[in-house]
């Protein structure tokens, strides 16, 4: 078991190293001066000698590329993500550490909802079948086809602006206004959980149907075990492993969807920060957030892998 954990951990670290390398290379992917490219993307007439000099010194682009790379890695190890272009005295890490908890709260709430609603729905659809199944399957099909910002916008339109049930967005701190805080969490969390919940529900349904069709289930039934008990105790547990894997994979999509949802509901998390930074071409902040999100994703998948190893001994080989 320990070897399994260590191996997974090692792979995770290697992957993280590759990821930060790719992010580093993104700036140097195309031949040409990265500073000019960065400024050029802001629009024609953007590149002046002063601006070029400013960007070059801020990103350390005047040094040879290997030096830049090693500097970059060394700084990352110390959790130094550079300083923002817009306020040169503000370290990117402080921006991110401010916003990360808010994003995590949203992600966690959405994942929780997705699991709490998706798994039972999927199991229900598999167990009962018929009209219920069709209804749930239609709902989930819709759920995976709707872009998350469409869901969010419709939520705002219907539940907030038309029916006034919830505030349309924004953020209230837990200490100052706990009721307001949760009021503002409801809509974005549900909107976010729609897509991933649908995937989880579909996965659960398929997995349950597959498990039920397997020989050992029929054996258990033939030995006289009641249907419900077989279902609850054996089928569900065995069906869960693919669902866990799916959830792990979908966390990536969830993190991405959070970016859009934070925009729709003006939730001041990392997603909003990312979009602001992209609009301002504040490259250090964008780079920092991308690395943090990718690291988060790798970490979560690592945990899922380890969980999988716990649930299914066969995986530990």
């Amino acid at each position, binding site marked *: 078991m320990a070897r399994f954990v260590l191996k997974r951990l090692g792979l995770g670290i290697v992957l993280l190293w590759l990821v930060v390398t790719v992010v580093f290379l993104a700036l140097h992917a195309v031949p040409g001066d990265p500073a000019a490219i960065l400024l050029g993307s*802001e629009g024609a*007439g953007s590149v002046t000698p002063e601006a070029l000099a400013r960007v070059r010194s801020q990103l350390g682009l005047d040094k040879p590329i290997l030096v830049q790379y090693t500097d970059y890695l060394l700084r990352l190890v110390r959790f130094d993500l550079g300083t923002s272009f817009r306020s040169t005295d*503000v370290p990117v890490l402080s921006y991110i550490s401010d916003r990360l908890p808010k994003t995590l709260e949203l992600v966690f709430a959405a994942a929780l909802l997705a699991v709490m609603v998706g798994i039972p729905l999927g199991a229900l659809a598999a167990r009962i079948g018929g009209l219920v199944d069709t209804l749930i399957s239609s709902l989930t099909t819709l759920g995976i086809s709707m872009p998350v910002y469409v869901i969010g916008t419709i939520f705002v339109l219907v539940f907030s602006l038309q029916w006034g049930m919830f505030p349309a967005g*924004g953020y209230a701190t837990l200490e100052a206004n706990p009721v307001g805080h949760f009021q503002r969490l409801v809509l974005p969390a549900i909107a976010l959980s729609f897509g991933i919940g649908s995937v989880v529900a579909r996965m659960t349904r398929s997995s349950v149907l597959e498990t039920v069709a397997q020989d050992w289930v029929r054996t258990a039934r033939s030995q006289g075990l009641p249907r419900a008990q077989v279902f609850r105790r054996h089928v569900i547990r065995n069906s869960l492993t693919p669902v866990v894997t799916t959830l792990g994979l979908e966390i990536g999509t969830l993190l991405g969807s959070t970016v859009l949802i934070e925009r729709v509901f003006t939730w001041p998390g990392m997603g909003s920060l990312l979009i602001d930074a992209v*609009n*301002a071409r504040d490259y250090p902040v964008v780079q920092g957030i991308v690395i943090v999100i990718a690291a988060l994703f790798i970490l979560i998948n690592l945990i899922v892998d380890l969980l999988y190893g716990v649930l299914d001994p066969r995986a530990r080989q």
Partner: protein
Amino acid sequence: MATLSRRSVLGAGSVSLGLLLTGCQGTATPGQSAAKLASELKIGLSADVPDLKPSRDQGAAAMMLDTLIHRGLLGYDAQGKVVPALAESFTPSADNKSFTVKLRKGLKFSDGSALTSANVKKTLEFLATSASGAKIYATMSKLESVETPDDLTAIVKLKGANVAFPSYLADTTAAILPDKAFSAQGTSWEGAGPFKLDTTQKGVSFTFTKNPEFYDAAKVNFEKVIVTVYADGQARLNALLATDVQLIDFVPWESFDRVKQDASLKLDPQSGPWMYLHFNVAKGGPLANEKVRQAIALAVNRENVAKAAFSGQANVVAGSPIAESSQFYDSKLASGWKQDVAKAKQLMAEAGYASGFDAVLLTSSQYAFHQDTALSVQPDLAAIGIRTTLDSGDWATRQTKAAEGRYDIAVAGSAGVVNDPSFLVNFVTGPAANNRSFGFDDPQLDALLQKGLEASTDADRKAVYNQVQERILTTVPFASLVGRAQAFAYSKKLTGFANIPGFLTFESGYTLVGAQLQA
């Protein structure tokens, strides 16, 4: 400008002291039962200000923050009248060429350091230096000297008479700054204003607490002011509707009616700022040719801009932005740029650009009205052969690019600094700035504007300003589009705050001193 003698100020002071004493009981009028007042005010602001440099023109949001943290020698009241602030008195000489400033006693910055005439001298000289990029540089460049006979007195001498000089010093960008603000990267979050910065959540909010060193601290009713950034107009409005904040700036124009329909909210619009296009002349090429600029001014459909970008809450300005109510308004000159597409095309041909040219149109996606203005004029420009691509990033980027001349044509919205045609000088001359044409230089126009400052009679001034307007119609330092309504919206429980009329709308933060919020 009315003379602010010490006696009249003292007189006003004693009256206000009396009011203050009754006000301390929490009522505006004596005799009423004391209403409970909130100690905290929450404001929703349209843009983040990552680095505050009060002397520069950083936009309306920065000006709001300036009114919270800083004070200059003079300020504005709710009616737009110049009133004393840090200065106890401000006396012009007979020829309006020198001004004697008497500071109040015991002035301090929020960090406790003393504010003396030395700080006044340093600030005014800073504003008068071209490299500082001050918003009011065009006026301050006429500074000759600042003498400081003692700690409380400063004598400001100008090279030429300027009867409107006090108005410039009442602007937020004329705030008196502590020494550390003048360092190379100097930003200034400490000042002599009613509040001081307590904490920030970068990009999200600012928390201010009452500054006990403020000279008028007794009148300040809020212990805390929390300013939250809502860059998206709809989000800002929603925050007000959800009572997350009690006051917002830049009410989205399409939502004016929505606010009016809400019984708990007040919409406070004024017509003031004006939208215009400015040009990169330094680059050479077609935009350096005044016929091309004239063509652009004649090609745009201003009614469309008013409707598309401001839901009709705007009026056409087809000449220099001089208010109809002003004595300097001339109806013929005010429509000098009335849309005439045929003439525009002819001018393009005369300039040698019959087949048109490509250009970058700079705007910002952060303010929807800004981008909509650009989208509205795009087809108008295309109709005369100018093929524009939009360059539309966030507000800070727009300001930087405009100041550095990284554009061809730019959309801008500005308020003149003062409600007097002399403000035009800020838009036609001076070092590079983010709200005027890059590299534009018209000595003849500058001379005319100077004449206007020096003219002694109103009749003379009118004649000169007519000439100024004619000259602007010809050389087109900017192409006016519309004058827009500018609105704040706030809870009806907030009293005392007012949207100052005309160009002074962005100075409205001054009225927060004395404003109260019912709990």
